[in-house]
């Protein structure tokens, strides 16, 4: 195989964000008790992973590549990767001496079997559609061959939305949810009681990535200090806060902002803000009048005051950002920025007048999720002030999602992008283009052409340019109105040290009890 581009990976790992913990002495032992805001329905290594599921899965499992602090792919179980000039062959050299929780040493056969299981069960198995073969020329080499160029293949392989977890080959034939939860992660599985708790135990046979100097996103050099971690699923926010205040847990996720203000006065508790947790949006239906009129859509875009809307959504932990990816992502750009947060009712009225809008009702479906309800009411009032006849309809999430899958019964709908802005540009494809795009847009040749460039170029700069065009087009045609980047406040006992909030999940390695 001709190797024109060889990625020597070790250097990438030197950029880790491990400095804060150097100032404090770590302590081994103890049990870290965590109050999560929700549990999971499945902890299968190859099924979908929301933020809470990732918190449960990533201590147990690792992947060939994973994502770093800003969502960029970095190596984990792979040591080196060589991609052929034609982009059709991915040659991974594995780290040697990596142990599974059952004591077995990981080899290429385990990787092959795991990826094949992923291709059977993962909701994102479409990522493996271009794969024609997975070969294991020696015990520490895995070669993946593609039938067509797929520049986002590495992003997909590293994506935490449905992780390509490596498990022992003898476990790979197990059906969904039937594995023994054996991986190579820094923790080994204890027990999982759905809707109650999950326990994790330090894996003393863990093989850290010694080429890294510290933890980086889901990768880097991970160290477990606690003997055990107990994840408790506490869905009621006030009960979570009470559990922290009473010392029954050391850490809680998703603290409501009124409680944050109160906890800030407690010297035994520290607030940890996660700057960007999800991206609240309102998407518009291009297939149904009156939002099939681009003038009406642009008027909606022009009328909204994102400062107010995001304050209502988040209670204060948010940032105004026009881009579809978070700050720091390599694909962040200025496309469409001028059309974000215009906040000009007079301009909106003028656009409406020019569009020929006659006051037809605009159906706004709002899911019965607390922040969406707040956003729904505020957006409705702002749009009414600009002359739009918005009719707010409240419903549960399944109803909203099902209606949005068709063309009728809605003009606007609330949603939140969770993993997409974190994992990157490639993950927006199914939302912006194709038959089932969120906006129900049809025959948008400009959008289709930009995605085609994005998907067929191996040149990163060309892909960035294509992505800029996609983002610009999404603003120009008003596919989805982005409201901002919404954060989340966590809180920890002062006893818990080393914790760093991360958009990917709550991480329990490199934290310790003082």
């Amino acid at each position, binding site marked *: 195989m001709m190797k024109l581009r060889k990625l020597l990976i070790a250097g990438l790992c030197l950029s880790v964000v491990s400095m804060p913990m150097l100032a404090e002495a770590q302590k081994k032992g103890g049990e870290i008790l965590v109050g999560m805001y929700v549990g999971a*329905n499945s902890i*299968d290594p190859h099924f979908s992973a929301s933020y809470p599921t990732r918190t449960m899965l990533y201590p147990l499992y690792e992947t060939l590549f994973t994502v770093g602090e800003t969502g960029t792919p970095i190596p984990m179980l792979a040591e080196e990767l060589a991609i052929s000039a034609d982009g059709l062959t991915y040659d991974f050299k594995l780290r040697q001496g990596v142990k599974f929780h059952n004591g077995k040493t990981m080899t290429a056969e385990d990787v092959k079997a795991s990826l094949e299981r992923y291709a059977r069960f993962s909701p994102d198995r479409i990522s493996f559609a271009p794969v024609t073969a997975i070969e294991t020329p020696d015990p520490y080499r895995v070669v993946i061959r593609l039938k067509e160029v797929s520049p986002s293949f590495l992003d997909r392989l590293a994506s935490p939305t449905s992780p390509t977890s490596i498990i022992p080959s003898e476990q790979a034939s197990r059906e969904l949810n039937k594995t023994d939860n054996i991986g190579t992660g820094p923790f080994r599985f204890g027990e999982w*009681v759905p809707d*109650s708790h999950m326990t994790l135990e330090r894996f003393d046979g863990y093989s850290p990535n010694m080429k890294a100097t510290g933890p980086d996103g889901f990768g880097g050099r991970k160290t477990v200090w606690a003997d055990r971690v107990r994840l408790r*699923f506490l869905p009621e926010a006030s009960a979570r806060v009470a*559990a922290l205040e009473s010392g029954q847990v050391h850490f809680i996720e998703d603290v409501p902002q009124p409680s944050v203000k109160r906890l800030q006065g407690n010297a035994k508790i520290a607030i940890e803000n996660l700057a960007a947790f999800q991206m609240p949006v309102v998407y518009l239906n291009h297939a149904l009048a009156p939002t099939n009129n681009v003038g009406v859509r642009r008027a909606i875009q022009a009328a909204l005051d994102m400062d107010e809307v995001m304050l209502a959504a988040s209670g204060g932990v948010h940032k105004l950002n026009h881009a579809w990816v978070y700050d720091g992502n390599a694909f962040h750009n200025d496309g469409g920025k001028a059309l974000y947060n215009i906040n000009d009712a007079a301009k909106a009225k003028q656009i409406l007048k020019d569009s020929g809008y006659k006051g037809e009702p605009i159906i706004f479906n709002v899911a019965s999720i607390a922040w969406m309800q707040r956003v729904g009411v505020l957006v409705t009032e702002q749009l009414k002030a600009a002359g739009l006849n918005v009719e707010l309809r409240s419903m549960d999430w*399944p109803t909203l999602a099902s209606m949005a899958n068709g063309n009728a019964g809605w003009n606007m709908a609330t949603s939140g992008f969770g993993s997409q802005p974190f994992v990157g540009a490639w993950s927006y494809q199914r939302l912006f283009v194709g038959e089932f795009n969120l906006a129900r847009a049809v025959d948008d040749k400009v959008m289709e052409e930009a995605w085609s460039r994005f998907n067929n170029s191996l040149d990163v700069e060309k892909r960035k340019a294509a992505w800029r065009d996609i983002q610009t087009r999404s603003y120009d045609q008003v596919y989805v109105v982005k409201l901002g980047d919404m954060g989340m406040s966590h809180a920890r006992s002062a006893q818990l040290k080393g914790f760093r909030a991360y958009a990917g999940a709550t991480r329990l390695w490199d934290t310790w009890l003082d």
Partner: protein
Amino acid sequence: MGRYIAHRLATTVVVLVVVSFISFSIMQLVPGDPAIIMAGLGASGDQVQRIREQFGLDQPFMFQLARWYGGLLVGDLGESITLSRPVIQALAERAPATLALAGVALALTLAIGVGAGVIAALRQNSWIDRLVMAIAVFGVSVPSFWLGLLFIIVFGVMLDVLPTGGYAPLAEGFTAWIKSLILPAVSLALLQIGLLARITRAAMVDVLQQDYMRTARAKGLPDWVRIGKHAFINVLVPVVTVIGIIFGLMLSGSVVIETVFAFPGIGRLMANAILTRDYPVIQGGLLVTAFAFVLLNLLVDVFYSWIDPRIRYD
């Protein structure tokens, strides 16, 4: 009595067939497609269709219904769509927490509700009566989730004597088990305590005015015999009727309390199933709940004849 029980059990089967048909039909009418929820926003038609096929959701209504009834005949409630496990297993995993919660809450309801009602009746129109009834009205009126949170703050945070949430199975020791149950059980029981106290008081007041009670007093029977034997046994009939309903409500209506106290029970299972349109779990859960209701009412009816020999069903 044997024939009566057999007849009632046969009726139970009919009730369950009807309940399962209604729950099955209603879920088909409710908007929201589990396949779309699982596939996520922007999923292609192929992806959604694949999930529908995987769980048989693409089949006609009558076919799905027939398959559902066919499974029931062999005790199979189907496979959960989101949990990837049999519904019966999901329910069995969560039953201990719900049964423990409802059981302790019922015990508290009986002890406090009946006791308070009897005392209020014996001290009719006194300050004790008025205090008991005022507390009963408070119990009936106060929202259980608010009370639960208040208990957590007072007993979990301020006094730090009880856990703020979570369920400790008996395997972790009796003390841990009962401590994990006290706050949620009291929160769940308070509404029913109020109801039961009012019903018990009304029944007791009525019984105390009966001629035979006056006769018992004239005979010079001591109070404990007069109240404990002659009055109380007659109060039991309406009280037992209510207890059957109360226990059923506790089993099925603990969703809010299970959420507030992070209890891994059937209530939370059902709430999550509704939010994800996990039809098999919703249908299975409704069926099991309906079965518990019917069975409890049958037990109550049988109990009637034990406490009042005049009641005969044959």
